[in-house]
């Protein structure tokens, strides 16, 4: 087995920890199925898009949460599509899974960073601590990440959908690596590192109070 095949097996193993990996719901790119399904692929790429927008479009001195109406509008399609399929109302397609995932992910990352400011991890997560708002006040109407920024996220999600969609079925292996490496890094960071940091910070705070 070549090194590339070994790495792909490891990627698939990591993906299996968070995703069902049903082949009919997973994108085939560069001759290999991605480590996670189309919806999770969209969500994880969407998260990256959201993080990429933060340095340019966040309003540093604002304290209110990201625009909740637009965030909700971006996240609802995934919920509706998932539940519709779960209850047998319709059978979704990989295209719909991908675009709903992208929209959901790009709305989620600003919310996640904002939520960090409210958690014991405030100012403690490398890379993200420089993007956090100075303070988080949920009642404040002045959004730290406004509707304009989220709309740009929506546009980028649509563009990303078109790009990823065009790669499906391609035999060029580089495309697989370009997508799967960031996907795996994000799974490790969001599903392993972040919960551990949260647990450690909560325990540290508990010990401090005692």
């Amino acid at each position, binding site marked *: 087995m070549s090194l590339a095949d070994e790495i792909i097996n490891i990627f698939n*193993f990591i993906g*299996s*920890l*968070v995703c069902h*990996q049903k082949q009919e719901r997973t994108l085939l790119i560069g001759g290999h199925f991605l480590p996670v399904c189309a919806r999770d692929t969209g969500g994880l790429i969407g998260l990256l898009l959201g993080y990429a927008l933060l340095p340019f479009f966040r309003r540093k001195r604002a304290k209110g*949460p990201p625009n*909740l*109406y637009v*965030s*909700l509008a971006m*996240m*609802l399609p995934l*919920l509706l599509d998932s539940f519709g399929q779960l209850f047998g109302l319709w059978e979704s397609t990989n295209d719909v899974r991908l675009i709903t995932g992208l929209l959901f992910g790009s709305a*989620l990352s600003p*919310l996640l960073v904002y939520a960090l400011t409210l958690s014991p991890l405030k100012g403690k997560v490398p890379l993200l601590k420089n993007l956090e708002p100075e303070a988080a006040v*949920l*009642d404040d109407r002045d959004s730290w990440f406004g509707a304009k920024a989220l709309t740009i996220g929506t546009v980028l999600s649509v563009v990303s959908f078109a790009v990823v969609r065009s790669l499906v079925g391609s035999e060029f292996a580089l495309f697989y690596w370009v997508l799967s490496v960031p996907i795996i890094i994000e799974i490790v960071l969001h*599903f*392993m590192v972040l*919960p*551990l940091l*949260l*647990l450690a910070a909560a325990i540290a705070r508990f010990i401090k109070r005692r």
Partner: protein
Amino acid sequence: MLLEYIISLLIAQDEWGLGLLGLSVFMCLIIPIVWFIVWILVAIWVYRDAESRGMSGVMWLLIVILLGLLGIIIYLVVRKDKSPNQPPPPPS
């Protein structure tokens, strides 16, 4: 698929396999517990916040438990503003 893989690791009993098994247990058990605890704590916060604003804490607790993140966002969108002179909710 994951279960079959874990069983094959147990049968193989090599160090690499056992390491992956440990990672599987960690990911499938400990991490979900952490997120579950976070979810419950947030739901409790929503309950208290709703009650302090004269809204139904129980209803919103259930909505957040059922809908998770979307429930929290919906709550933040629709919750009443806190007025400085708002009387405390009546005792149950």
